[in-house]
């Protein structure tokens, strides 16, 4: 400004202790990948049969990098590593990545820090689908998924579609309408789910297991069926980072910054729902990751979706991988319980340390 001086504000930038990494996102990406590699080796090693990290690395190098390494391990070990442990830990990473990316997207899109991947009814839809799959007597396979996974996937997508369509006929502002419609449809589906569980008898445990979330059912075909959905949709979301950034200032300001708000909202909603549906189909309902990881990333690098999305992907993958390792070490408790027990205190600590006026 052409007036003299700028002495209105005396306070110098109050940068949190976390601020030091803020300008070095590449460092965070590097740390994230190291954490993922360690998780991969640990995740393969931990379980009813403990596998030596050296063997793990040798088997992985031998099988996937084609290195000519003399076999010092048994064939049984190799089978456990390749057929059981590896798809499991990779599934955990994939689901963590999906939930964190979807969470960051829903938070940005709905401009609501409390949003998570399940906020618009996908969770209830998926759970109801899974419950129906458990209860009906026929068995068939959808897209390499078992019936539970297939119907959960369809249930999640169906519920978000219904929410979106219903929300458009309301006189409310679009975002308010979406959130409230999501809440209403979610409640209705939750009631149907409760009824299904009440009537399920012996199948209750199977439904309950799905609700708590776990990677027990992880297999290569399921992993490989979900991988392209999550990968392609997540990349498509990241390529729309500009739209999410524009929406930081509100829908009208976003429009003035060149964002076609209505179109971008529709596309991002569809992509994030697809990612969520794929994740809940193979893992059940794992809470906390999608809500918290994007917030932690924002505290570290700021709100730009260009950084938040990829770093959330890595952070979510790492978080769920370690949560699953801990769940197995603790005797197979549901991984969703671990994410909450470990994640909530961690998040509280982060919130206390953040000096950047963080509020939800």
């Amino acid at each position, binding site marked *: *400004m*052409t*007036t003299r001086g*700028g*002495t*209105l*504000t005396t*306070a*110098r*930038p*109050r*940068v949190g202790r976390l601020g030091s990494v803020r300008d070095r996102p590449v460092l965070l990406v590097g740390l994230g990948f190291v954490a993922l590699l360690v998780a991969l080796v640990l995740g393969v090693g931990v379980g009813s049969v403990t596998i030596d990290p050296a063997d793990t690395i040798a088997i992985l190098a031998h099988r996937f990098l084609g290195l000519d390494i003399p076999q010092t391990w048994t064939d049984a070990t190799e089978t456990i590593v390749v057929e059981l442990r590896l798809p499991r830990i990779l599934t955990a990473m994939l689901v963590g990545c999906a939930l964190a990316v979807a969470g960051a997207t829903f*938070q*940005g899109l709905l*401009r*609501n*820090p409390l949003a998570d991947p399940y906020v618009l009814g996908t969770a209830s839809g998926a759970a109801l689908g899974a419950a129906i799959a458990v209860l009906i007597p026929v068995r068939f396979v959808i897209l390499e998924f078992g019936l539970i996974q297939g119907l959960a996937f369809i249930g999640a997508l169906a519920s978000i579609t219904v929410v979106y369509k219903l929300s458009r006929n309301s006189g409310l502002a679009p975002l308010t309408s979406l959130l409230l419609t999501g809440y209403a449809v979610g409640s209705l589906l939750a009631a149907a789910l409760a009824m299904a569980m009440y009537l399920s008898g012996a199948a209750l445990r199977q439904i309950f297991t799905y609700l708590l979330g776990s990677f027990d059912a992880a297999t290569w075909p399921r992993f490989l069926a979900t991988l392209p959905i999550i990968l392609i949709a997540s990349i498509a979301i990241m*390529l729309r*980072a*500009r739209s999410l*950034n*524009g929406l*930081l*200032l*509100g829908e*009208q*300001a976003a*429009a*003035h*910054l*060149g*964002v*076609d708000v209505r179109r971008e909202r529709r596309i991002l909603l569809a992509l994030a729902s697809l990612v969520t549906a794929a994740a809940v189909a193979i893992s059940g309902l794992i809470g906390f990751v999608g809500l918290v990881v994007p917030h932690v990333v*924002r*505290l570290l690098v*700021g*709100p*730009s979706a*260009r950084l938040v999305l990829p770093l959330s992907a890595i952070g979510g993958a790492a978080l769920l991988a370690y949560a699953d390792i801990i769940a197995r070490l603790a005797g197979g408790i549901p991984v969703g319980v671990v994410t909450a027990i470990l994640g909530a205190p961690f998040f509280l600590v982060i919130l206390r340390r*953040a000096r*950047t*006026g*963080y*509020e939800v």
Partner: protein
Amino acid sequence: MSAAIVELDAVTVAYRERRALLDITLSIAAGERVALIGPNGAGKSTLLAVATGLLRPAEGRVRLTGEPVEGLDRLDVARRLAVVPGAANLPFATRVEEVVALGRLPHEDPFRGARPADRAAIAAAIERVGVGHLLGRDARELSLGERQLVLIALAVAQSAPVLILDEPTVHLDLRHQVGAMELLVDLNERDGTTIIAVLHDLALAAHFFPRLVLLDGGRIVADGSAAEVLTPDRIREVFGVDPSFVRLPVGAA
């Protein structure tokens, strides 16, 4: 005067029953500095919404740099017009420099993000609007006035040929009001940026803007210099106040 950069041709806008704009014809040439004035509900903000393509008029046509606005996508519009956001209701902690950086979104490469040219424009806007002392702070912790300056810096960073402001001075103290006006004059005279501002303060409008457009009841009732537009009779008629309440600079009124 050079070619028209923003043109409204017989524009009418109706919200349900109420006519918000009635048969508005207005042409603003590149390099002009125009203040839109008028009482609350006169249609000033609606006029801006129509001019920026956010609102489709019931009748009439809007052209930006000669092209019909409905044929332009939002990015095309954003590269022609920078609009200072009315409010920044940020959902997440966002530093001042990150807010200003959002002004570069229309120029950003979708794959690579901000490039050196973008960073230079951001730094220049911060310097020019004088918000350098706010860097590093969460924009949500700022006073309303500080936030308003940050949003002006955002629009300046957008470096569009037209800058549009809707009541840019409401939260500013007197010194910053004058500062903001001097900035607009400087952007206009030095960079040739066309300025269109909705202003409530008639004295500021009269002093800093060579052209005033007075709206009332959805119509343009006067268009010209401060002396032509702000006559005592018109102030009494349109604003319903005694003209002696309005202290205008010498030469106007």
